[in-house]
Protein backbone atom coordinates (compact mmCIF):
# COMPACT_ATOMS: atom_id res chain seq x y z
CA UNK A 1 0.00 0.00 0.00
CA UNK A 2 1.43 3.39 -0.91
CA UNK A 3 0.38 6.99 -0.52
CA UNK A 4 0.56 9.00 -3.73
CA UNK A 5 -0.74 12.30 -4.93
CA UNK A 6 -3.35 12.24 -7.68
CA UNK A 7 -4.98 15.40 -9.00
CA UNK A 8 -3.56 17.30 -6.05
CA UNK A 9 -4.94 14.94 -3.37
CA UNK A 10 -2.88 12.49 -1.26
CA UNK A 11 -4.54 9.08 -1.55
CA UNK A 12 -3.74 5.52 -0.48
CA UNK A 13 -3.56 2.90 -3.23
CA UNK A 14 -3.03 -0.86 -3.15
CA UNK A 15 -0.37 -2.77 -5.10
CA UNK A 16 -2.52 -2.78 -8.25
CA UNK A 17 -3.42 0.90 -8.01
CA UNK A 18 -6.96 0.65 -6.59
CA UNK A 19 -7.94 3.31 -4.04
CA UNK A 20 -8.03 1.92 -0.52
CA UNK A 21 -10.69 4.36 0.69
CA UNK A 22 -13.53 5.05 -1.81
CA UNK A 23 -14.36 8.23 0.16
CA UNK A 24 -11.10 9.83 -1.03
CA UNK A 25 -12.28 9.67 -4.63
CA UNK A 26 -13.12 12.73 -6.75
CA UNK A 27 -14.03 12.86 -10.47
CA UNK A 28 -10.63 14.49 -11.10
CA UNK A 29 -8.90 11.50 -9.50
CA UNK A 30 -10.96 9.27 -11.79
CA UNK A 31 -9.79 11.18 -14.86
CA UNK A 32 -6.17 10.96 -13.76
CA UNK A 33 -6.38 7.17 -13.13
CA UNK A 34 -8.03 6.78 -16.55
CA UNK A 35 -5.11 8.60 -18.21
CA UNK A 36 -2.49 6.47 -16.49
CA UNK A 37 -4.49 3.38 -17.57
CA UNK A 38 -4.39 4.37 -21.23
CA UNK A 39 -7.78 6.10 -21.58
CA UNK A 40 -6.93 9.70 -22.54
CA UNK A 41 -10.43 11.06 -22.07
CA UNK A 42 -13.52 9.86 -20.26
CA UNK A 43 -16.59 10.26 -22.50
CA UNK A 44 -20.18 10.39 -21.18
CA UNK A 45 -20.45 6.65 -21.96
CA UNK A 46 -17.39 5.98 -19.78
CA UNK A 47 -18.91 8.04 -16.99
CA UNK A 48 -22.21 6.19 -17.24
CA UNK A 49 -20.39 2.96 -16.45
CA UNK A 50 -18.06 4.40 -13.80
CA UNK A 51 -20.91 6.07 -11.93
CA UNK A 52 -23.05 2.94 -12.12
CA UNK A 53 -20.18 0.88 -10.68
CA UNK A 54 -19.53 3.33 -7.91
CA UNK A 55 -23.17 3.78 -6.92
CA UNK A 56 -23.74 0.05 -6.90
CA UNK A 57 -20.67 -0.51 -4.76
CA UNK A 58 -21.61 2.18 -2.26
CA UNK A 59 -25.16 0.82 -2.01
CA UNK A 60 -24.36 -2.91 -1.75
CA UNK A 61 -20.71 -3.18 -0.71
CA UNK A 62 -19.93 -5.23 -3.82
CA UNK A 63 -18.76 -4.06 -7.22
CA UNK A 64 -20.87 -5.50 -10.05
CA UNK A 65 -19.36 -8.12 -12.33
CA UNK A 66 -19.03 -7.65 -16.06
CA UNK A 67 -22.22 -9.65 -16.59
CA UNK A 68 -24.16 -7.42 -14.22
CA UNK A 69 -22.73 -4.37 -15.96
CA UNK A 70 -23.88 -5.73 -19.33
CA UNK A 71 -27.36 -6.39 -17.98
CA UNK A 72 -27.91 -3.27 -15.91
CA UNK A 73 -25.57 -0.37 -16.72
CA UNK A 74 -27.26 0.39 -20.04
CA UNK A 75 -23.99 -0.26 -21.90
CA UNK A 76 -23.74 -3.63 -23.71
CA UNK A 77 -20.74 -5.87 -22.97
CA UNK A 78 -19.19 -5.46 -26.40
CA UNK A 79 -19.11 -1.68 -25.98
CA UNK A 80 -17.76 -2.07 -22.43
CA UNK A 81 -14.71 -3.81 -23.90
CA UNK A 82 -14.29 -0.98 -26.41
CA UNK A 83 -14.54 1.66 -23.68
CA UNK A 84 -12.36 -0.14 -21.13
CA UNK A 85 -10.00 -2.46 -23.02
CA UNK A 86 -9.11 -5.87 -21.52
CA UNK A 87 -11.01 -5.80 -18.24
CA UNK A 88 -13.98 -3.41 -18.14
CA UNK A 89 -15.16 -4.24 -14.62
CA UNK A 90 -11.66 -4.03 -13.18
CA UNK A 91 -10.73 -0.83 -14.98
CA UNK A 92 -14.03 0.95 -14.31
CA UNK A 93 -13.71 0.04 -10.62
CA UNK A 94 -10.20 1.48 -10.51
CA UNK A 95 -11.30 4.69 -12.22
CA UNK A 96 -14.34 4.90 -9.92
CA UNK A 97 -12.18 4.63 -6.79
CA UNK A 98 -13.67 1.38 -5.49
CA UNK A 99 -11.94 -1.95 -4.70
CA UNK A 100 -11.16 -4.56 -7.35
CA UNK A 101 -14.29 -6.61 -8.11
CA UNK A 102 -13.97 -9.94 -6.38
CA UNK A 103 -15.80 -11.87 -9.08
CA UNK A 104 -13.05 -14.39 -9.55
CA UNK A 105 -12.47 -16.83 -6.72
Amino acid at each position, binding site marked *: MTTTEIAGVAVERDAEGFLVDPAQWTPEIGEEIARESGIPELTPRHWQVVRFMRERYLATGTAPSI*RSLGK*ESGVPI*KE*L*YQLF*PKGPAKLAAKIGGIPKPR*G*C*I
Partner: protein
Amino acid sequence: MTHRIVVLGGGTGGTMVANRLRRRYGEDEATIAVVDRDDRHVYQPGLVFLPFGLTDSDEIVRPRQRQLRGGIDFHQSEVEHVDIEEDEVVLEDGTTLQYDVLVVATGVVLQPEETEGLTGPGWNERMFTFYDIAGAEQLARALDSFDGGRVVVNLVDMPIKCPVAPLEFAFLADAYFSERHLRDKVELTYVTPLDGAFTKPVASERLAGLLSDKRIELVTEFAAGEVDGERGRLVSWDEREVPFDLLVTVPLHGGAAYVGRSEGLGDDLGFVPTNQRTLQSLAKANIFAIGDATNIPTSKAGSVAHFEGEVLEDNVARFLEDRELSTAYDGHANCFIETGFGKALLIDFNYEQEPVPGHFPTAIGLPLLKESRLNHLGKLMFQWLYWHVLLPGRDIPGISAEMPESGKRSQPEPV
Protein backbone atom coordinates in the same frame (compact mmCIF):
# COMPACT_ATOMS: atom_id res chain seq x y z
CA MET B 1 -43.89 -25.44 19.44
CA THR B 2 -42.78 -27.44 16.44
CA HIS B 3 -40.29 -25.62 14.22
CA ARG B 4 -40.96 -25.76 10.50
CA ILE B 5 -37.74 -26.05 8.47
CA VAL B 6 -37.81 -26.05 4.66
CA VAL B 7 -34.69 -26.85 2.63
CA LEU B 8 -34.75 -25.97 -1.07
CA GLY B 9 -32.44 -28.29 -2.99
CA GLY B 10 -31.50 -31.90 -2.34
CA GLY B 11 -27.89 -31.75 -3.50
CA THR B 12 -24.71 -31.78 -1.44
CA GLY B 13 -25.52 -28.86 0.87
CA GLY B 14 -29.27 -29.39 1.22
CA THR B 15 -29.06 -33.13 1.89
CA MET B 16 -26.33 -32.73 4.46
CA VAL B 17 -28.06 -29.89 6.30
CA ALA B 18 -31.43 -31.64 6.35
CA ASN B 19 -29.82 -34.78 7.74
CA ARG B 20 -27.86 -32.84 10.37
CA LEU B 21 -30.95 -30.97 11.51
CA ARG B 22 -33.00 -34.19 11.54
CA ARG B 23 -30.45 -35.72 13.90
CA ARG B 24 -30.49 -32.64 16.11
CA TYR B 25 -34.27 -32.31 16.43
CA GLY B 26 -36.80 -34.99 17.28
CA GLU B 27 -39.87 -35.20 15.05
CA ASP B 28 -41.99 -33.52 17.72
CA GLU B 29 -39.51 -30.60 17.82
CA ALA B 30 -39.22 -29.84 14.12
CA THR B 31 -40.66 -30.80 10.75
CA ILE B 32 -38.14 -30.85 7.92
CA ALA B 33 -39.04 -30.72 4.23
CA VAL B 34 -36.64 -30.96 1.28
CA VAL B 35 -37.69 -29.81 -2.18
CA ASP B 36 -35.99 -30.75 -5.44
CA ARG B 37 -37.19 -30.80 -9.03
CA ASP B 38 -35.84 -34.31 -9.69
CA ASP B 39 -34.74 -37.41 -7.83
CA ARG B 40 -31.24 -37.75 -9.29
CA HIS B 41 -28.41 -36.86 -6.93
CA VAL B 42 -25.21 -36.53 -8.97
CA TYR B 43 -21.81 -36.98 -7.35
CA GLN B 44 -20.48 -33.98 -9.24
CA PRO B 45 -16.73 -34.53 -8.73
CA GLY B 46 -17.24 -37.64 -10.89
CA LEU B 47 -18.38 -35.64 -13.93
CA VAL B 48 -14.83 -34.81 -15.07
CA PHE B 49 -14.07 -38.55 -15.35
CA LEU B 50 -17.13 -39.42 -17.44
CA PRO B 51 -15.91 -38.12 -20.84
CA PHE B 52 -12.79 -40.30 -20.57
CA GLY B 53 -14.66 -43.48 -19.67
CA LEU B 54 -13.10 -43.48 -16.20
CA THR B 55 -16.50 -43.73 -14.54
CA ASP B 56 -20.09 -44.08 -15.74
CA SER B 57 -23.35 -42.45 -14.81
CA ASP B 58 -24.66 -45.46 -12.88
CA GLU B 59 -21.74 -45.05 -10.56
CA ILE B 60 -22.18 -41.34 -9.83
CA VAL B 61 -26.00 -40.94 -9.76
CA ARG B 62 -28.23 -42.09 -6.91
CA PRO B 63 -31.82 -41.23 -5.89
CA ARG B 64 -31.94 -38.02 -3.83
CA GLN B 65 -34.63 -39.33 -1.55
CA ARG B 66 -32.59 -42.30 -0.46
CA GLN B 67 -29.84 -40.00 0.87
CA LEU B 68 -32.30 -38.40 3.31
CA ARG B 69 -32.86 -39.71 6.83
CA GLY B 70 -36.25 -41.03 7.87
CA GLY B 71 -38.60 -38.28 9.02
CA ILE B 72 -37.69 -35.84 6.24
CA ASP B 73 -40.48 -35.01 3.76
CA PHE B 74 -39.28 -34.99 0.16
CA HIS B 75 -41.23 -32.91 -2.36
CA GLN B 76 -40.36 -33.50 -5.99
CA SER B 77 -41.35 -30.30 -7.74
CA GLU B 78 -39.88 -27.17 -9.26
CA VAL B 79 -40.12 -24.16 -6.93
CA GLU B 80 -42.43 -21.49 -8.32
CA HIS B 81 -41.28 -18.77 -5.93
CA VAL B 82 -40.53 -17.87 -2.32
CA ASP B 83 -42.62 -15.19 -0.65
CA ILE B 84 -40.18 -13.81 1.88
CA GLU B 85 -42.79 -11.48 3.42
CA GLU B 86 -45.23 -14.32 4.14
CA ASP B 87 -42.51 -16.91 4.97
CA GLU B 88 -43.79 -19.40 2.45
CA VAL B 89 -42.61 -21.38 -0.55
CA VAL B 90 -44.97 -21.98 -3.46
CA LEU B 91 -44.19 -25.08 -5.53
CA GLU B 92 -45.12 -25.61 -9.17
CA ASP B 93 -47.21 -28.62 -8.21
CA GLY B 94 -49.45 -26.24 -6.25
CA THR B 95 -48.21 -27.07 -2.74
CA THR B 96 -47.48 -24.21 -0.36
CA LEU B 97 -44.92 -24.78 2.39
CA GLN B 98 -44.77 -22.41 5.34
CA TYR B 99 -41.54 -22.12 7.25
CA ASP B 100 -39.91 -20.71 10.35
CA VAL B 101 -36.50 -21.23 8.76
CA LEU B 102 -35.71 -21.54 5.06
CA VAL B 103 -32.41 -22.96 3.78
CA VAL B 104 -31.61 -22.14 0.14
CA ALA B 105 -29.42 -24.90 -1.29
CA THR B 106 -30.43 -24.97 -4.94
CA GLY B 107 -26.95 -24.50 -6.35
CA VAL B 108 -26.52 -23.07 -9.84
CA VAL B 109 -27.92 -23.61 -13.30
CA LEU B 110 -25.84 -23.76 -16.46
CA GLN B 111 -26.65 -21.03 -18.97
CA PRO B 112 -25.01 -21.95 -22.29
CA GLU B 113 -27.75 -20.02 -24.12
CA GLU B 114 -26.40 -16.78 -22.62
CA THR B 115 -23.32 -16.98 -24.86
CA GLU B 116 -24.15 -16.11 -28.44
CA GLY B 117 -23.89 -19.07 -30.79
CA LEU B 118 -22.98 -21.62 -28.13
CA THR B 119 -26.25 -23.56 -28.35
CA GLY B 120 -26.49 -22.96 -32.12
CA PRO B 121 -25.06 -25.15 -34.91
CA GLY B 122 -22.48 -27.59 -33.56
CA TRP B 123 -23.80 -27.73 -29.99
CA ASN B 124 -23.37 -31.28 -28.75
CA GLU B 125 -21.69 -32.13 -32.07
CA ARG B 126 -18.36 -30.32 -31.80
CA MET B 127 -19.11 -28.12 -28.76
CA PHE B 128 -19.82 -29.77 -25.42
CA THR B 129 -19.90 -29.24 -21.70
CA PHE B 130 -19.07 -31.96 -19.18
CA TYR B 131 -20.83 -30.04 -16.38
CA ASP B 132 -23.93 -32.22 -16.58
CA ILE B 133 -24.49 -35.93 -17.15
CA ALA B 134 -26.01 -35.65 -20.61
CA GLY B 135 -23.26 -33.34 -21.86
CA ALA B 136 -20.48 -35.45 -20.36
CA GLU B 137 -21.87 -38.60 -21.99
CA GLN B 138 -22.12 -36.94 -25.40
CA LEU B 139 -18.58 -35.65 -25.02
CA ALA B 140 -17.42 -39.19 -24.19
CA ARG B 141 -18.76 -40.39 -27.53
CA ALA B 142 -17.15 -37.48 -29.40
CA LEU B 143 -13.77 -38.10 -27.78
CA ASP B 144 -14.03 -41.75 -28.66
CA SER B 145 -14.18 -40.99 -32.36
CA PHE B 146 -11.78 -38.01 -32.27
CA ASP B 147 -8.58 -38.76 -34.13
CA GLY B 148 -6.71 -35.46 -34.07
CA GLY B 149 -7.07 -31.69 -34.31
CA ARG B 150 -7.53 -28.70 -32.07
CA VAL B 151 -9.18 -29.24 -28.70
CA VAL B 152 -10.03 -26.06 -26.81
CA VAL B 153 -11.07 -26.01 -23.15
CA ASN B 154 -12.77 -22.74 -22.22
CA LEU B 155 -14.49 -21.32 -19.18
CA VAL B 156 -16.69 -18.45 -20.28
CA ASP B 157 -16.69 -16.42 -17.06
CA MET B 158 -16.52 -16.75 -13.29
CA PRO B 159 -18.18 -17.75 -11.07
CA ILE B 160 -18.25 -21.44 -11.98
CA LYS B 161 -18.63 -24.60 -9.94
CA CYS B 162 -15.31 -26.15 -9.03
CA PRO B 163 -12.96 -23.63 -10.68
CA VAL B 164 -10.28 -26.33 -10.97
CA ALA B 165 -12.44 -28.72 -13.02
CA PRO B 166 -11.63 -27.26 -16.46
CA LEU B 167 -7.92 -27.57 -15.61
CA GLU B 168 -8.48 -31.17 -14.55
CA PHE B 169 -10.24 -31.78 -17.84
CA ALA B 170 -7.24 -30.43 -19.77
CA PHE B 171 -4.78 -32.55 -17.77
CA LEU B 172 -6.89 -35.68 -18.17
CA ALA B 173 -7.28 -35.00 -21.90
CA ASP B 174 -3.49 -34.89 -22.24
CA ALA B 175 -3.26 -38.29 -20.54
CA TYR B 176 -6.20 -39.69 -22.52
CA PHE B 177 -4.74 -38.77 -25.91
CA SER B 178 -1.27 -39.94 -24.84
CA GLU B 179 -2.63 -43.33 -23.88
CA ARG B 180 -4.40 -43.55 -27.23
CA HIS B 181 -1.10 -42.63 -28.99
CA LEU B 182 -2.77 -39.57 -30.49
CA ARG B 183 -1.14 -36.86 -28.39
CA ASP B 184 1.09 -35.63 -31.25
CA LYS B 185 -1.96 -35.15 -33.44
CA VAL B 186 -3.87 -33.11 -30.86
CA GLU B 187 -3.30 -29.45 -30.05
CA LEU B 188 -4.62 -28.74 -26.57
CA THR B 189 -5.42 -25.15 -25.61
CA TYR B 190 -6.75 -23.79 -22.30
CA VAL B 191 -8.59 -20.49 -22.72
CA THR B 192 -9.55 -18.48 -19.63
CA PRO B 193 -10.86 -14.99 -18.84
CA LEU B 194 -8.53 -14.88 -15.80
CA ASP B 195 -5.06 -13.37 -15.99
CA GLY B 196 -3.47 -16.74 -15.15
CA ALA B 197 -4.21 -20.46 -14.95
CA PHE B 198 -6.06 -20.02 -11.65
CA THR B 199 -7.44 -17.33 -9.38
CA LYS B 200 -4.83 -17.37 -6.60
CA PRO B 201 -1.21 -16.35 -7.33
CA VAL B 202 0.90 -19.23 -5.92
CA ALA B 203 -1.40 -21.98 -7.19
CA SER B 204 -1.78 -20.15 -10.49
CA GLU B 205 1.97 -20.21 -11.10
CA ARG B 206 2.26 -23.91 -10.26
CA LEU B 207 -0.69 -24.84 -12.44
CA ALA B 208 0.63 -22.78 -15.36
CA GLY B 209 3.89 -24.75 -15.01
CA LEU B 210 1.96 -28.02 -15.21
CA LEU B 211 0.06 -26.87 -18.31
CA SER B 212 3.33 -26.02 -19.98
CA ASP B 213 4.95 -29.35 -18.97
CA LYS B 214 2.03 -31.15 -20.56
CA ARG B 215 2.21 -29.06 -23.76
CA ILE B 216 -1.14 -27.39 -23.17
CA GLU B 217 -1.19 -23.86 -24.52
CA LEU B 218 -2.51 -21.24 -22.09
CA VAL B 219 -4.51 -18.26 -23.41
CA THR B 220 -5.40 -15.73 -20.66
CA GLU B 221 -7.65 -12.66 -20.36
CA PHE B 222 -9.89 -14.08 -23.05
CA ALA B 223 -13.50 -13.16 -22.28
CA ALA B 224 -15.52 -15.31 -24.67
CA GLY B 225 -18.46 -13.37 -26.11
CA GLU B 226 -19.45 -15.52 -29.05
CA VAL B 227 -18.97 -18.98 -30.49
CA ASP B 228 -19.16 -19.80 -34.18
CA GLY B 229 -19.85 -23.51 -34.31
CA GLU B 230 -19.88 -23.71 -38.10
CA ARG B 231 -16.44 -22.17 -38.55
CA GLY B 232 -15.10 -23.58 -35.29
CA ARG B 233 -14.15 -20.24 -33.75
CA LEU B 234 -14.28 -18.98 -30.19
CA VAL B 235 -14.48 -15.17 -30.31
CA SER B 236 -13.73 -12.80 -27.42
CA TRP B 237 -15.57 -9.55 -26.65
CA ASP B 238 -12.49 -7.68 -27.85
CA GLU B 239 -12.55 -9.67 -31.10
CA ARG B 240 -9.71 -12.11 -30.69
CA GLU B 241 -10.32 -15.61 -32.10
CA VAL B 242 -9.28 -19.10 -31.06
CA PRO B 243 -9.97 -21.86 -33.63
CA PHE B 244 -11.18 -25.31 -32.54
CA ASP B 245 -12.22 -28.67 -33.92
CA LEU B 246 -13.64 -29.70 -30.55
CA LEU B 247 -14.73 -27.17 -27.93
CA VAL B 248 -15.15 -28.15 -24.30
CA THR B 249 -16.92 -25.27 -22.61
CA VAL B 250 -17.82 -24.42 -19.06
CA PRO B 251 -20.84 -22.20 -19.73
CA LEU B 252 -22.00 -19.22 -17.70
CA HIS B 253 -23.59 -20.03 -14.34
CA GLY B 254 -26.50 -18.37 -12.57
CA GLY B 255 -28.65 -19.10 -9.54
CA ALA B 256 -31.79 -21.24 -9.80
CA ALA B 257 -34.55 -19.63 -11.88
CA TYR B 258 -37.07 -19.32 -9.01
CA VAL B 259 -34.62 -17.04 -7.15
CA GLY B 260 -35.24 -14.46 -9.85
CA ARG B 261 -39.01 -14.89 -9.40
CA SER B 262 -38.78 -14.38 -5.61
CA GLU B 263 -38.79 -10.70 -4.83
CA GLY B 264 -35.95 -9.62 -2.55
CA LEU B 265 -34.24 -13.00 -2.39
CA GLY B 266 -31.38 -12.90 -4.90
CA ASP B 267 -29.00 -10.64 -6.81
CA ASP B 268 -29.13 -9.97 -10.55
CA LEU B 269 -27.39 -13.28 -11.35
CA GLY B 270 -29.74 -15.23 -9.10
CA PHE B 271 -27.31 -15.82 -6.23
CA VAL B 272 -28.46 -15.18 -2.66
CA PRO B 273 -26.57 -12.37 -0.90
CA THR B 274 -25.31 -14.08 2.24
CA ASN B 275 -23.25 -13.17 5.29
CA GLN B 276 -19.91 -14.85 4.62
CA ARG B 277 -19.30 -15.77 8.27
CA THR B 278 -22.78 -16.77 9.55
CA LEU B 279 -24.40 -17.96 6.27
CA GLN B 280 -27.56 -16.04 7.13
CA SER B 281 -29.02 -14.38 4.05
CA LEU B 282 -29.11 -10.61 3.81
CA ALA B 283 -32.67 -10.93 2.49
CA LYS B 284 -34.29 -11.85 5.81
CA ALA B 285 -33.14 -13.20 9.19
CA ASN B 286 -34.99 -16.51 8.87
CA ILE B 287 -33.42 -17.38 5.51
CA PHE B 288 -30.02 -19.10 5.32
CA ALA B 289 -28.07 -20.22 2.27
CA ILE B 290 -25.40 -22.82 1.60
CA GLY B 291 -23.12 -23.97 -1.19
CA ASP B 292 -23.21 -22.75 -4.78
CA ALA B 293 -26.44 -20.79 -4.25
CA THR B 294 -24.76 -18.04 -2.19
CA ASN B 295 -22.75 -15.05 -3.37
CA ILE B 296 -19.99 -15.45 -0.77
CA PRO B 297 -16.41 -14.95 -1.97
CA THR B 298 -15.11 -18.50 -1.86
CA SER B 299 -15.09 -21.31 -4.43
CA LYS B 300 -18.33 -22.93 -5.51
CA ALA B 301 -17.40 -26.46 -4.51
CA GLY B 302 -18.70 -29.46 -2.62
CA SER B 303 -16.00 -29.07 0.01
CA VAL B 304 -17.25 -25.57 0.72
CA ALA B 305 -20.83 -26.81 1.20
CA HIS B 306 -19.42 -29.53 3.45
CA PHE B 307 -17.52 -27.12 5.69
CA GLU B 308 -20.44 -24.67 5.70
CA GLY B 309 -22.84 -27.41 6.78
CA GLU B 310 -21.49 -27.61 10.30
CA VAL B 311 -21.79 -23.84 10.85
CA LEU B 312 -25.17 -23.65 9.15
CA GLU B 313 -26.70 -26.36 11.31
CA ASP B 314 -25.45 -24.60 14.42
CA ASN B 315 -26.78 -21.23 13.24
CA VAL B 316 -30.24 -22.53 12.28
CA ALA B 317 -30.50 -23.89 15.83
CA ARG B 318 -29.20 -20.64 17.34
CA PHE B 319 -31.71 -18.67 15.31
CA LEU B 320 -34.62 -20.87 16.36
CA GLU B 321 -33.51 -20.65 19.99
CA ASP B 322 -33.06 -16.90 19.75
CA ARG B 323 -29.32 -16.98 20.48
CA GLU B 324 -26.54 -14.99 18.83
CA LEU B 325 -25.26 -16.51 15.54
CA SER B 326 -21.83 -18.08 15.23
CA THR B 327 -19.36 -16.40 12.88
CA ALA B 328 -17.28 -19.56 12.53
CA TYR B 329 -17.29 -20.09 8.75
CA ASP B 330 -13.85 -19.01 7.50
CA GLY B 331 -14.20 -19.64 3.76
CA HIS B 332 -12.48 -23.02 3.98
CA ALA B 333 -12.25 -24.89 0.66
CA ASN B 334 -10.33 -28.03 -0.22
CA CYS B 335 -9.97 -29.44 -3.73
CA PHE B 336 -8.23 -32.37 -5.33
CA ILE B 337 -6.98 -31.56 -8.82
CA GLU B 338 -6.56 -34.61 -11.04
CA THR B 339 -3.48 -34.21 -13.21
CA GLY B 340 -3.66 -37.46 -15.21
CA PHE B 341 -1.60 -40.66 -15.19
CA GLY B 342 -2.92 -41.61 -11.73
CA LYS B 343 -1.78 -38.46 -9.96
CA ALA B 344 -3.43 -35.44 -8.39
CA LEU B 345 -2.69 -32.20 -6.57
CA LEU B 346 -4.45 -30.99 -3.45
CA ILE B 347 -5.19 -27.37 -2.50
CA ASP B 348 -6.58 -26.11 0.81
CA PHE B 349 -7.47 -22.46 1.48
CA ASN B 350 -9.90 -19.96 3.03
CA TYR B 351 -10.87 -16.26 2.84
CA GLU B 352 -7.49 -15.15 4.19
CA GLN B 353 -5.08 -17.90 3.21
CA GLU B 354 -4.39 -18.63 -0.46
CA PRO B 355 -3.38 -22.19 -1.46
CA VAL B 356 0.30 -22.81 -0.64
CA PRO B 357 2.58 -25.88 -0.52
CA GLY B 358 2.91 -28.04 2.58
CA HIS B 359 0.83 -30.93 3.86
CA PHE B 360 -2.83 -31.48 4.79
CA PRO B 361 -4.29 -31.60 7.41
CA THR B 362 -1.04 -31.49 9.43
CA ALA B 363 2.70 -31.72 8.65
CA ILE B 364 2.12 -35.46 8.24
CA GLY B 365 -0.53 -35.79 5.58
CA LEU B 366 -1.35 -35.37 1.93
CA PRO B 367 1.10 -33.17 -0.01
CA LEU B 368 -0.32 -29.75 -0.96
CA LEU B 369 0.14 -28.19 -4.41
CA LYS B 370 2.28 -31.10 -5.52
CA GLU B 371 1.48 -33.98 -7.87
CA SER B 372 1.24 -37.29 -6.08
CA ARG B 373 -0.34 -40.73 -6.38
CA LEU B 374 -1.57 -40.37 -2.79
CA ASN B 375 -3.76 -37.40 -3.72
CA HIS B 376 -5.26 -39.35 -6.62
CA LEU B 377 -6.14 -42.17 -4.23
CA GLY B 378 -7.53 -39.56 -1.84
CA LYS B 379 -9.81 -38.26 -4.57
CA LEU B 380 -11.06 -41.77 -5.39
CA MET B 381 -11.64 -42.59 -1.73
CA PHE B 382 -13.56 -39.39 -1.24
CA GLN B 383 -16.42 -40.72 -3.34
CA TRP B 384 -17.12 -43.34 -0.66
CA LEU B 385 -16.88 -40.74 2.12
CA TYR B 386 -19.28 -38.52 0.19
CA TRP B 387 -22.18 -41.00 0.18
CA HIS B 388 -21.52 -42.61 3.53
CA VAL B 389 -20.17 -39.89 5.80
CA LEU B 390 -20.61 -36.42 4.32
CA LEU B 391 -24.23 -36.60 3.06
CA PRO B 392 -25.52 -38.34 6.20
CA GLY B 393 -24.09 -35.38 8.07
CA ARG B 394 -21.40 -37.13 10.06
CA ASP B 395 -18.03 -35.49 10.68
CA ILE B 396 -14.93 -36.81 8.94
CA PRO B 397 -12.33 -37.49 11.67
CA GLY B 398 -9.46 -35.00 11.50
CA ILE B 399 -11.17 -32.78 8.90
CA SER B 400 -12.99 -29.80 10.37
CA ALA B 401 -14.80 -26.79 9.04
CA GLU B 402 -12.00 -24.51 10.16
CA MET B 403 -8.97 -24.51 7.85
CA PRO B 404 -5.90 -26.16 9.43
CA GLU B 405 -2.72 -24.08 9.38
CA SER B 406 -0.10 -26.31 10.92
CA GLY B 407 1.01 -28.15 7.76
CA LYS B 408 1.16 -25.11 5.48
CA ARG B 409 4.31 -23.34 4.40
CA SER B 410 3.40 -19.68 4.31
CA GLN B 411 6.47 -18.85 2.24
CA PRO B 412 6.26 -20.90 -0.94
CA GLU B 413 9.44 -22.55 -2.12
CA PRO B 414 10.71 -21.42 -5.51
CA VAL B 415 8.90 -23.16 -8.35
